[in-house]
């Protein structure tokens, strides 16, 4: 585990979902710092502007206005600057074809937004755990497809 707080960036337009995420994260009592953006354009601006330091992980919602998660994912991965940014895609529905597409576009992990708060806490915890594990192993590339979906 890194001594500094884990820099987490969350991109989600839904204020309820953002507050759920924040609450879940806080209840995990990990050293984290959360930044929230509410649409795709905001996200890209933030990333492009903040070239000094990339976040440690980006939780990316797919359904956002103006620029949705898909487009952001493509744009981010096209840019070499962001090649090492781990992205965890967050979505309400699970569709195998979409999941495959998201994997092909370079996301690290995929999570389906759960219906229960407790589950939400669990999968955020699991996602962060895996990211940190990858860091320590010196592995910042996309994991294998079998580990792609976090249930």
């Amino acid at each position, binding site marked *: 585990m890194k001594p500094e707080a884990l820099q987490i960036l969350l991109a989600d337009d*839904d204020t*309820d*979902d953002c507050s*759920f995420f924040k*609450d879940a994260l806080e209840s995990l009592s990990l050293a984290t710092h959360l930044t929230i953006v509410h649409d795709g354009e905001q996200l890209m601006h933030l990333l492009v502007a903040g070239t000094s330091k990339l976040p440690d992980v980006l939780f990316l919602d797919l*359904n956002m206005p103006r620029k949705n998660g898909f487009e952001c994912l493509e744009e981010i991965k096209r840019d070499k600057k962001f090649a090492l940014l781990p992205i965890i895609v967050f979505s*309400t*529905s699970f569709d195998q074809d979409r999941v495959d597409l998201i994997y092909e576009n370079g996301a690290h992990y995929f999570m389906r*937004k*759960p*219906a*229960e*708060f*407790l589950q*939400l806490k669990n999968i955020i915890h699991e996602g962060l755990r895996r990211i940190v594990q990858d860091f320590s192993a010196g592995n910042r590339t996309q994991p294998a497809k079998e580990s792609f979906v976090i249930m």
Partner: protein
Amino acid sequence: MYTQNAKELNLANKELAFQNEEKEKRADELIIAKYARSLIEASLDPLVTISAEGKILDVNEASIKVTGVPREQLIGTDFSNYFTEPKKAQRGYQQVFEHGFVADYPLTIKHKDGNLTDVLYNASVYKDDKGNVLGVFAAARDVTEQKWAIDLKIANKELAFQNDEKEKRAAELIIANEELAFQNDEKEKRAAELIIANKELAFQNNEKEKRAAELLIANKELEAFTYISSHDLQEPLRKIQTLVSIIIEEESKNLSDNGNYNFQRIQLAAGRMQLLIEDLLAFSRINTTERKFEETDLHTIIEEVKAELRDTIHEKQATIEATDLCPANIIAFQFRQLLYNLISNALKFSKNDIISRIIVTSSIVKGSKLNNPKLSSENDYCHISIEDNGIGFEPRFSERIFEVFQKLHGKEVYAGTGIGLAIVKKIVENHNGIITATGELNKGAQFDIYIPVATN
């Protein structure tokens, strides 16, 4: 002496006068004979006299001409030598001897050079003073020209007949041509009609293509609509569930028992709604997504389904047997959904007191052996059967269970949205097949699926 001389002179004069008379008689006879001869020679008809033995006694110039043989060679030879049918000639003059004459007896005279002359013979016997038959006198009438005339007449008759026939044929030909012209007219009319029909057909095809294109767009829109609406429905639902779960977790001590219980019921209801939306989404997706048929090993699909249902299978201690499954021409992802639904049902509706046993079999059968009005007797079908030993159902519901939202049990007894079998039936229909359900209460159920082996 003088008187003797006068007597002798008188006698001599009488003798002389007698001689002179005889001479004059002879001279007269000679003139007659010459006259007769001239007549004979002048005749254009070949004249001939024939002896009783059939030898030529005398001929005229015309005979010489027609035979091409000189007089000296003709005389004394057999009359019948100079004919194409010597025996007929002989019979001819025999008839003269018998009857005294013969009239218009046809023969053909042969010239030395080979030329033939058709003649008609008229002959009669001639007798001496005492009535003895000396021979036959025969005259030949050249009938070549008459024969030609007759032949010509026949030829003309034949020609007239042929012309008549020709005119009849010409008349028939005119009728035939008129008929042909009429047929051609009809053909052109048909061709014109055909052109119009083809134009109409091309137009219809165009319309069909437009409709097909519109349908494609409509389907895509429906797909998008369905996805978006189910997704949009899922969002607030999930929020409800999350918020309720937060309340239950954090506020349970602040709520009465009733309050807690109510929130739990909200959670259950929301959970059911979620399943419903997911099932509806799956149901609509079956219609609107692309259908790609592939030859697939059913074993692979069964294994994937078993993996998905691993926990339930373990919990029910169930066995799923599937051996010797023939490959089938199917839309893989749809068929996976189908088998998942059927097997998950079999597990759900299993009996509690015995080990659940599910048997999946498949084979190829001929349509003609199946005797089902919905199946073509000309096609081969892949028959897939899923049999279980669960709680079964009453036979009178064997068709209702495939309807959307039709359940045979209350939701408290057996969970479920009532769409599972409707989805199964839709998938079977997508494969141009049929599905039947047979069962008895408490004696298990069997689902039989028939899908054509070749893609239509």
